[in-house]
């Protein structure tokens, strides 16, 4: 613990600051050029949309779980409410998804508020358990109320052709740019959050709730706003998801498999970091494309889940905080 440790540490810090600007800007530039390289109707664009939707969900989860340390095991709730809300409002009332998505986010935030109010005064696993319980409830409800949700078969969004007001398109190109804007916006928001007062408070609550309270941080309120922000972001991604796929079903929305997949990008890429969910999500979609191709060749299904599990194990064993992790305890 001598001063000799200082100079190399500073050296790393300075070079990192540069990379932290150059890398994201370069990645964004390459992404913008992608459609012109691979063609605007390319299958690859669809994969990119899928990856970015996945990344956006990871970014949203990261806000409350990675930065705030509140482990949500049921983020599918917010995703599903956003997706179903948007689809139902459009199908039954003809409401444009531009408004429906926002209303879905509002509904999602209301659910988040109830969950937080019920569990955030308690410490430990209660919040995590509540998120699982509400996921299971909503999945059952979605299967039961066939008239509204389409039941087990799910809900197909009424397709009216290319339309800006209905946010529908035969080409993946608009969705490519929409999801790119979303991922970039969430990335910038996460970076700003990490350097903001509210972000410090969230991280203080994550590291030591009691010490945070003794330092003047309103613990309950901080967790609550963290969850609300995360729920809103998740629901907006759900709205974009349902516009792209034009379908949603109970398992994809509220299933625990979905909820677990939402956690993987941050866990692999780096909990509580801005770049972590982006890298983690990108790796996962690349891997899943390879395993899907293999599955098709070998008729062995579920290779993607196997690969995710293996990657997660390797990360947890060798880089516990994730690839970009800065958390010492990995939690």
């Amino acid at each position, binding site marked *: *613990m001598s*001063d000799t440790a*200082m100079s190399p*540490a*500073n050296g790393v*810090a300075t070079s990192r600051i540069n990379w932290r600007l150059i890398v994201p800007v370069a990645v964004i530039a390459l992404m913008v050029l992608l459609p012109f390289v691979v063609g605007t109707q390319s299958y690859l664009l669809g994969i990119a949309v899928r990856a970015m939707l996945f990344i956006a969900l990871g970014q949203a989860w990261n806000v409350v779980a990675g930065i705030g340390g509140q482990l949500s095991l049921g983020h599918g709730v917010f995703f599903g409410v956003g997706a179903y809300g948007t689809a139902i409002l459009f199908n039954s009332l003809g409401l444009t998804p531009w408004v429906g998505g926002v209303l879905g986010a509002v509904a999602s935030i209301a659910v988040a508020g109830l969950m937080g109010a019920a569990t955030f005064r308690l410490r430990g696993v209660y919040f995590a358990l509540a998120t699982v319980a509400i996921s299971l409830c909503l999945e059952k409800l979605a299967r039961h109320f066939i008239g509204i949700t389409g039941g087990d078969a799910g809900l197909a969004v009424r397709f009216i052709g290319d339309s800006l007001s209905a946010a529908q398109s035969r080409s993946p190109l608009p969705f490519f740019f929409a999801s790119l804007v979303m991922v970039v916006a969430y990335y910038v928001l996460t970076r700003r959050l990490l350097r903001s*007062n509210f972000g*410090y*408070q969230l*991280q*203080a609550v*994550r*590291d*030591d709730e*009691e*010490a*945070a*309270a*003794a*330092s*003047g*941080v*309103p*613990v309950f309120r901080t967790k609550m706003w963290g969850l609300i922000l995360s729920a809103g972001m998740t629901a907006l991604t759900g709205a974009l998801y349902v516009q792209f796929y034009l379908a949603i079903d109970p398992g994809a929305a509220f299933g625990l498999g979905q909820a677990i997949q939402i956690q993987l990008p941050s866990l692999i890429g780096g909990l*509580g970091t801005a770049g972590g969910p982006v890298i983690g999500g990108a790796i996962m979609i690349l891997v899943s494309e390879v395993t899907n191709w293999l599955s098709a060749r070998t008729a062995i299904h579920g290779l993607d889940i196997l690969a995710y599990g293996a990657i997660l194990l390797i990360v947890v064993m060798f880089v516990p905080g994730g690839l970009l992790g*800065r*958390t*010492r*305890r990995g939690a």
Partner: protein
Amino acid sequence: MTLLTVESLKVGYGDLIAVRDVSFTVKPGEIFVLLGANGSGKTTTLRAISGLIRPIAGRIAMEGEALGAIKPHAVARLGISHVPEGRRIFPNLSVDDNLTVSYLPTRTDKSLRAILDEVYGLFPRLRERHKQMAGTMSGGEQQMLAIGRALMNCPKLLMLDEPSLGLSPVMTDLVFERLEAISNQGLTILLVEQNASAIDLATSGVILSNGVVSMAGDRAALSSTQYIQKAYLGV
């Protein structure tokens, strides 16, 4: 004139009563010590003042105003800062960020920068390490950071729970010397210690044993009761 009044405080965890009957008053500008052996109720008393645990009975008042069932963050906002036992800095935040979290603009006209400079003036070692992740620092540095963090909200009362715990004698001396410097700037300090050398620092204090006050007085009185120190502090 008193800053903090604790009257007939009784605090417990479930059936276990840790503090039976504790009363004392802290006057502005003094260094008041709460001495006692392990399990005598020192930490519990501090936690009750901070609002981290709700008392069963008794009254705690700051500048004559009863605190009641107030939340811990609200206690901090009244100007009572708590340096918890075992430091409990935020390990994944940098030194700068640990300090920034505690800055409460509602409590002061000073800018964040100005208070950071004051804290770094008191603890130059922290300034050297301001970008370092706090969890990677030594125990002594973490203790300095915990004290610095408690100073960020410009408190009227600084409460410290065994700041010498786990520190080398040299580091303990340094921490105590810094506390004197902080006190000389006019800040009132409530110091919980098992280490009887804290008496040398104190203007007055009490000795707790088994959740009651067994001895109260000024520094001369506390240090003259050698036999009490032997009995309750084991030194």
